[in-house]
């Protein structure tokens, strides 16, 4: 490669770097929008998560079904902890 070609490639690289720098400077204040956030549910708020809502709905469904009987069980896990399980039977 001769010097002219090397110079051309170098010029393109440096100008691309400068363009990247310009974009980084311009994007800096725009990125400040992500500084202000809303706290997630459960972290000091009374808002229920999707999982919580689904569990409550399922429990209500089971409670409303008169053909089923609920009985609480307390089996032990492998580690010896007592688990609280609800057995549902017809």
């Amino acid at each position, binding site marked *: 490669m001769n010097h002219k070609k090397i110079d051309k490639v170098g010029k393109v690289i*440096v100008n691309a770097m400068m363009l990247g720098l310009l974009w980084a*400077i311009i994007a800096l*204040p725009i990125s400040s929008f992500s500084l202000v956030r809303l706290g997630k549910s459960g972290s000091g708020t009374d808002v229920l998560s999707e999982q919580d809502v689904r569990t409550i709905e399922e429990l209500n469904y089971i409670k409303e079904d008169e053909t089923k009987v609920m009985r609480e069980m307390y089996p032990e896990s492998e580690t010896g902890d007592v688990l609280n399980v609800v057995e549902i039977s017809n």
Partner: protein
Amino acid sequence: MGVKNPKLKKSHKMILSNITLTLLFMILLLYLPMISRTLIRLIDQAIVPAILLLCTRLASVILVSYFIGAKFSFSAKGFIFHDPNNYVKVNSYSTLAMVVILGLGLIYILAKALYFHDTHISPKLTTKLFHHKMTTLIQNSFELYSQGVIWLVYLYLITIVAVILGIFGVIYSWVTIVSGSFCAIATLLLILDIENELDEIDEGYKEEIENES
């Protein structure tokens, strides 16, 4: 068999990244005179508004939360609000503060472009400015348009972000409308000045041809 040290792998990566950075820096130094003059000018003009906007955002978030009595926690993630109403209020007013700061900056640049542009400033005004030692207000097209373009780009980007946030209901929609209006007015005024400038060039060219003939 021995276990590979993860720190050793990390240090290899660090050395490689250092070499890459040094190489890039050397290329930058070598080709510094070849960098586009316009790009350097734009980078130079972009630093001040970037810092100004960042400071405005931080200050406005703190001040608005203080005035409306909104509670927030500050962590590595930023300002975290727990009340959605306060979050929307703080977000809206801090965006508005950024738009107002950009608007003021653009009014200053557009005033310079429309009244103190070196191509079409009146002789009376030039004398007055010389008398009051305010000649720095008189600027050429390259300086004015590079400033105007950078500030306008910031305003456009903030408007785009405001539209997206407005769609998701994270800021009030009237903030988006104000931002968009500022954007339209500033663009219109800058285009008017560019048209003025082009007319001046055209007239100068015609005069030159007439003098030659």
